[in-house]
């Protein structure tokens, strides 16, 4: 088991009830695995879309990207900069 940091922003932070936390899961895992674990740990996040945007260690990635212990996964609502 490894600990992975998770970050929530904007509306997703409201759903999760926090802006940052961590989940434990078997690593290496994928971003999709981390999101599945997040849905178990933070009940409000069951309202997240099936395939949300995600970043791994500050770079946007696909959901099949590999995650290792100590990594940071961020769940990103649709981007609205500018």
């Amino acid at each position, binding site marked *: 088991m490894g600990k992975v940091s998770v*970050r929530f*922003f*904007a*509306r997703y932070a*409201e759903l999760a009830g926090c802006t940052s936390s961590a989940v434990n899961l078997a690593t290496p895992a994928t971003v999709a695995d981390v999101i599945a674990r997040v849905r178990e740990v933070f009940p409000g996040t069951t309202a997240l879309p099936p395939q949300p945007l995600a*970043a791994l260690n*500050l*770079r*946007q990635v696909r959901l099949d990207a590999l995650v290792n212990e100590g990594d940071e996964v*961020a769940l*990103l*609502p*649709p*981007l*609205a*900069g*500018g």
Partner: protein
Amino acid sequence: MMHLTRHPLDVDDLLTEVQGPERGGTCVFTGTVRNDGDVTGIEYSAYEEMAFGEIERILGEAQAQWRDARVMLQHRLGLIPVGEASIAIAAAAPHRDDAFAACRFVIEQVKKRLPVWKKEHHLDGTTAWVDPSGKPVAHGP
């Protein structure tokens, strides 16, 4: 220059960063909080560590594509009242075509890539997250 700020944007500061005697054309884009119905302001939040890196990459890509140009941007965060700018981009190049093109490139990449989110504040005190199409997605107190 800091790319993310919680203070009002100053275009003159951006111009100082990009202008020079060898660059004869300068293009400035500002995005301003619009008076949409009963909106009083928009609250901008960001994944700041990622946004900073993404801005650096976008500016680097613009620099690689228009080698004689200089481009700079600032994005404001926090609650911004209607009529004030949320983003300002300045691009200077030897000739206007490259200045316009570099400026356009940067704002379009910002729209696609920058981890920034908007929450509208309304006259009656309610708030609503806004998705990229401009459609509110959720209401809160």
